[in-house]
């Protein structure tokens, strides 16, 4: 029992990170029709910003807020500089450009901070632990899950209730018709990047806070996995992004926990095989109705 609960808890905290990143992919994809391969690098930016600010002696709360702002700034800047000029270009140009941005950011980060892995020192409070059904849980695990729930609800509310949120859904539904009612696409895309960046910043900080060590290549792999989670759930579906994130994490964690001795290390292989199988059966993902609504 204890082992199962422990597995479940680690799946939930990993899944929360995937879900936060996957929502960002999903929002940008449904509005621009492109995958931002550099999205994962936003996690890296948030983490390195926080690490630098803490090293500079700022208080933890202030450093977190500032690093989120810095991440948002980068997110918006990337869209402005790299993606706006190629918005109407073909898919392969978009893939190449966002990969180039990703490589560039990682390389610059390596040049500034070098590629050795670093440790994030978070306040002692977050690493306090307690027991649930015999499994150890730390405060940051609870914070990770709670942040994901709260942020997801906030995103849903923005999309359902606010003027800009409705405009975002309109653009993703019918770009031309949204032009014709006077929706400014640039503004909608900027807001999509702001939301994606905030979520990515949280994901980056929570991830590095949990695993305490990080390096400049932390973002890409996480990004690819979260993206696959978003595809699994159904790109463009918010429910899908969240569900996909948790399913991905459950598969990964439980494969490594429960596969027989000798095959457990193949967890990544098995996870991807399951995902490919799912996509063969349901090419649009599990919740792929391309809908923001939870239906």
């Amino acid at each position, binding site marked *: 029992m204890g082992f199962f609960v422990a597995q479940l808890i680690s799946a939930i905290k990993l899944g929360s990170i995937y879900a936060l990143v996957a929502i960002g992919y999903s929002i940008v994809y449904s509005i621009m029709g492109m*995958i931002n391969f550099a999205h994962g690098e936003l996690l890296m930016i948030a983490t390195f910003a926080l690490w630098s600010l803490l090293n500079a002696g700022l208080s933890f709360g202030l450093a977190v807020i500032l690093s989120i702002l810095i991440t948002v700034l980068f997110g918006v800047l990337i869209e402005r500089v790299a993606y706006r*000029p190629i918005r109407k270009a073909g*898919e*392969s140009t978009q893939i190449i450009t966002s990969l180039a941005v990703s490589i560039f950011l990682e390389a610059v980060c390596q040049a500034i901070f070098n590629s050795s892995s670093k440790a994030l020192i978070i306040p002692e409070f977050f690493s306090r632990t307690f027991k649930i059904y015999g499994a150890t849980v730390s405060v940051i695990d609870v914070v990770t899950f709670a942040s994901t729930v709260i942020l997801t609800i906030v995103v849903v509310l923005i999309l359902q209730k606010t003027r800009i949120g409705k405009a975002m859904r309109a653009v993703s539904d019918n770009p031309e018709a949204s032009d014709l009612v006077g929706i400014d696409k640039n503004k909608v895309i900027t807001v999509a990047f702001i939301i994606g960046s905030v979520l990515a910043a949280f994901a980056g900080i929570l991830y590095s806070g949990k695993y305490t060590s990080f390096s400049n290549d932390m973002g890409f792999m996480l990004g690819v996995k979260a993206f696959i989670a978003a595809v699994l759930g159904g790109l463009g579906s918010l429910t899908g992004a969240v569900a996909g994130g948790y399913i991905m994490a459950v598969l990964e964690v439980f494969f490594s926990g429960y596969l027989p001795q000798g095959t457990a*290390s193949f967890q990544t292989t098995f996870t*991807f095989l399951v995902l490919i199988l799912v996509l*063969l059966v349901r090419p649009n993902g599990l919740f792929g109705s391309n809908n923001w609504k939870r239906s």
Partner: protein
Amino acid sequence: MKTQRFTDNSLFRFLMVILVPLAIILLVHFKAGNYYESILILFFINLILAASLNLTNGITGIFSLGQAGFMALGAYIGSILTLSESTKDTMVSKMPQWLKQFQLPFWAALIVAACVTMIIAGIIGFAILRAKGHYLAVITLGMVIVIKSVLDNASSLTNGSRGISGMTKYSTLPVVIITALISLFILYRFRTSAYGRSMIALREDEDAAASLGINHRTIRLMSFMISAFFAAVGGCLWAHLQRTIAPSLFYFDETFTILEMSVLGGMASLSGAIPGAAVLTFLPQLLANFSTGFTIFGIHVPQINGLTNIVTSVLFIIMIIFRKEGITGSSEYLVGTLFSSSTYTGLFRKQTYLDFAHAFTRKNRSEKNKGEPQ
């Protein structure tokens, strides 16, 4: 008189595309040291890898990021086949006995590795090729992750993340040049065949191609498999140049390097692989001299980590902004010159030499005119 572009002149083509490079190769081979020769070998291997990616990404329009994975398969299968029983016994002791004893000469190993990889690519492609665009890009990237994970963990075959080493250096300059020429020739013939033309039709307009009776699934799968075949050839050669391989060498970095070569050179043509591979092979070597810090105009620039990555990614971005189609675009001038008979038969015609000489005198005259005040 029929006007002919000077660059179409057979003599010019022969000189620039065949003779000059040949001279450089011979010079490096006989005069320069081992270091330069191995860079040149690397260039020809990269050339094969970039050309193999161009076939899918640029010519058929299947955007794959999986080349590093196929390269890894080629490298591993090839190496296991060429290593001697005693080497395998000490390094990968858990390997099945029959495989330990199984040893092939290099050329046979190269072909077997490429064929096995092609079959694996066929199975993978059958499953994933219904995806397109962004989806396919990510799924093929996922494939690279899976292949690395398998190589990392199937330690009874691969020695895990420590990798295998001790291969003989079969990838000498003549070997890689011959292999690169044969590879380019096959790819070029394939591109100019009816199949190749259907691939281009498929890239341009899928619906129209389908209405012409082109079976897009077959064509896409075929292109994916052939591409994997040559990626494996490149990987196998690479393994027998470096003589030591590990799963982590065939991961995202290698994926991007191949993609950068392909995009910089020009994805839409096989010829693009030549300048692409040249830039991405020689530039990092050049930059390596600066990576420990240097002084320019009296200002000392300190050591920059990952300078190569920064320079290549900036180059990459500049290229996308200003010349999206890459250095060669869709022109097959380079590869076409290499393999078309007119280049060689033209050398036996008097007119070729007259045109060539004529172009020079005309050029000189116009330069003279420019110099004189009106």
